[in-house]
């Protein structure tokens, strides 16, 4: 087997979860998202229910401005230390149990579920697979997400 780009430290991160984050959903935040994305359904514009992709913004870290890099990006705690530094979004798959609504207090846990090394057309690639589990205040499932990030 050829030498792996995936360090032992990165490999040992597989199966590890980041500390869960808890967020409170407000109607106004749903309304802002719905206006910004030019939704047409009244339930979204009124903030009675969140559009599915609202989840993406809801769980982004709220990084203070003086902790952002010159590109505007915050350092990502969910990235293991790898020799390939350019990170791209791969795919995202969500399985919904119910929509997100104002007043929801949601807890999200992100876990690095796997790392794969592949040979791309222009060089090696590392695929990072994550699972995200979002539950409500009673621990009932709201959405499960599987996503992939590609490092090159």
């Amino acid at each position, binding site marked *: 087997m050829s030498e792996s780009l995936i360090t032992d430290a990165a490999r040992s991160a597989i199966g590890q979860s980041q500390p869960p984050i808890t967020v409170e959903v407000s109607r106004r935040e749903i309304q802002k998202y719905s206006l910004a*994305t030019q*939704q047409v359904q009244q339930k979204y514009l009124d903030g009675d229910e969140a559009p599915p*992709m609202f989840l993406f913004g809801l769980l*982004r870290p709220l990084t203070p401005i003086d902790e*952002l890099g010159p*590109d505007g990006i915050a350092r990502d705690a969910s990235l293991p230390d790898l020799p390939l530094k350019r990170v791209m979004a791969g*795919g*995202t798959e*969500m399985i*919904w149990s119910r929509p997100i609504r104002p007043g929801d207090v949601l807890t999200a846990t992100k876990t690095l579920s796997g790392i794969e090394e592949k040979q791309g057309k222009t060089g090696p690639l590392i695929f990072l697979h994550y699972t995200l589990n979002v539950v409500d205040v009673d621990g009932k499932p709201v959405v499960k997400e599987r996503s992939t990030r590609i490092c090159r």
Partner: protein
Amino acid sequence: MSRFANIKVGDRLPEKNHTATEISLFLYNAAIWNPHRIHYDAPYTLEIEKHPAIVIDGPLQGDWLAQCVTDWLGQDGELVTFSYANRRASYLGETLTATGEITEKDEVAGTVNVRLGIRNEAGEIIAPGSATVRFSEE
């Protein structure tokens, strides 16, 4: 006959064009708390990150795919699964089209699978996706 009964594999969802503007990208990135400069700072985007123009967010294209299916579904059921991937970048000034087509129908479960895609002006699918929806019983 119910709406579900009338759905056939191969039916196409209504297409919708999306033309991002500096204002819409600013509001989107503010709403999701995304300060990455490639979405609002043109000189930086061209000179430092070497893109041809301001970059349209990948997850925003994901939202347009989700809208394609949820607007078609309306109040007649619920979204069960949704997936998408960004395969190629898109830039301010381009008009992107959200498309969808029924690929499977499960008469017993009352579910329908939809293939989704963001098509650019060159006719390429730059963000494929899929969704499963469950129709409410009448």
